């Protein structure tokens, strides 16, 4: 009965690499994807500075151009992912084609996320370049800039869990496209536009509970203040906390999708 076969499980790392290669290719073939991802943060950066710079800079010590760079980054990297590809794989049945192979199931998601890392890091670099062109300088120097990019990318990665979870649970592209809406309360109930000290009662209260506030504080402090361990740790903790929740959602969605409910 035991039939000889050429095939064998390729191993976890090889599976992730194979899936990542395809995801990166799909990224490369959809350069139009970068357009909106860059347009919105740049648009809001210009508008926010144009409309609020004079008012905001009445608060002593605020450099509003620097203050807005982290907001632009968060706008750029939050909610972008290859979930748009995964949901089509689910809907059109290509995921099944991969699932009949011995591929490790988690590699299917992690491989996609490798492409996401490349994407969010690229977007972060481009947005920071925009800030530098606008005259923003880092108090923490080049190393601080690097840490800034890594934290921004980590945040972008942390949020990818949500669209992946939606893709795997629903198999519905429209639902995936709407999933970035979840991000709006995160971004707007926070210190995106004015420092927390200047916010009024209820919004200030909400902002204190919002992980994006700590993310922005950490990123801002790298630009304008210097090495503040508390702020930096806060930003990392915010990204890590979100990652724990969203990755749990994504991987449990993957498990229930590949097991096929009995």
């Amino acid at each position, binding site marked *: *009965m*035991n039939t000889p076969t050429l095939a064998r499980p390729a191993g976890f790392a090889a599976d992730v690499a194979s899936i990542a290669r395809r995801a990166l290719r799909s990224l490369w073939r*959809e350069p139009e994807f970068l357009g909106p991802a860059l347009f919105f943060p740049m648009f809001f950066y210009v508008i926010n500075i144009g409309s609020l710079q004079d008012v905001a800079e009445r608060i002593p010590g605020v450099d509003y151009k620097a203050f807005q760079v982290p907001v632009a980054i968060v706008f750029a990297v939050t909610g972008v992912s290859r979930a748009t*590809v995964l949901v089509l794989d689910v809907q*059109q*049945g290509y995921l099944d084609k991969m699932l009949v*192979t011995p591929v490790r199931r988690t590699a299917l998601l992690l491989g996609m996320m490798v492409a996401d890392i490349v994407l969010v890091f690229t977007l972060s670099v481009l947005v920071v370049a925009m800030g530098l062109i606008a005259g923003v300088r880092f108090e923490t120097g080049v190393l601080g800039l690097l840490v800034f990019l890594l934290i921004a990318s980590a945040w972008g990665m942390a949020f990818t869990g949500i669209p992946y979870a939606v893709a795997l649970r629903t198999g519905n592209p429209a639902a995936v496209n709407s999933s970035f809406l979840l991000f709006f309360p995160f971004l707007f109930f926070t210190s995106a536009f004015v420092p927390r000290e200047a916010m009024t009662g209820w919004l200030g209260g909400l902002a204190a509970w919002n992980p994006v506030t700590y993310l922005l504080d950490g990123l801002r402090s790298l630009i304008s203040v210097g090495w503040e361990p508390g702020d930096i740790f806060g930003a990392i903790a915010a990204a890590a906390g979100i990652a724990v929740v969203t990755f749990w959602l994504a991987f449990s969605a993957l498990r229930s999708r590949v097991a096929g409910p*009995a």
Partner: protein
Amino acid sequence: MIEADSLVRRFGDVVAVDRLSLTVDRGEVYGFLGPNGAGKSTTVRILCTLLAPTEGTARVAGFDVVDQASEVRVRIGVALQESALDGKQTGRELLDLQARLYGLRGATLQRRLDAVIGLADIGNAIDRQIGTYSGGMRRRLDLAAALVHDPQILFLDEPTTGLDPPTRTKVWAEVRRLQREHGATIFLTTQYLEEADALCDRVAIVDQGTLAIEGTPSELKRRVGRDLVVVELAGDTTGATTGATAGATDAVADLAGVDDVRITDRTLVVATANGAGLVGPVAVRLAEKAFDVASLTVRTPTLDDVFLEATGHRLRDDGTITEEVTR
């Protein structure tokens, strides 16, 4: 090579597969014939480890499809219905990815890629994005992808549905070649009677999630009877089959030598051991009873007749079935 024992698969209240058991031997082309919604694809998905059965067990190549899914996966090749392929990759990239997921490397990988690219036979299009392919090209690429690791067991879920006749013939030739030259065991689902008849060593007719009948095509046809006298009734075609045709069944049922009588629409089919001998008596009896006969022929049974016998329906080419037929 493939054994299923009392498989049940429920989706909520719907029972898609209902206590289905079957055995497929090594080197055999096994046809799983049935209308849309009969449970064909669900059965294939269970056997391919994509779906867990609600009850029952199945073993493929000697391994349990639930507990030893990985062992099963490395031994089977699967081409699912509708050839779902990623349109943004080129054909070559898709085959390469599939091969790597099967753990192929280096020279083996290259050798197998060359082999299946030759098999897909789509020329330079192999380096174009799949989004630009025709239905037939996608199907050939899908089949090539299923073969990239040279599996001994192949699952083909409706491999020719929606293909034009010349392309369908090519797929048939390929299936025959795989069986002949590689000794592959092939489990094939189809809604085409002629496909099951032309390709399969054994055919199972599946209806409402259960196996209605199973055997070699010739065995199955013999069960219907050696000859069929087929009468096309003329006259009022607007009338339902009810009154007029029910009478026709009764009219001939008591003739000597009649084994079985069935009617669909306006076609009366009489099964008998001796067709030539029965044509006269049937014609005379129908004339006596004032039925208007448009044509009267004798033929040997087809799988269509087997399907009717087993399920009480006729199977149309689009995978739907006719209403229950009066006996």
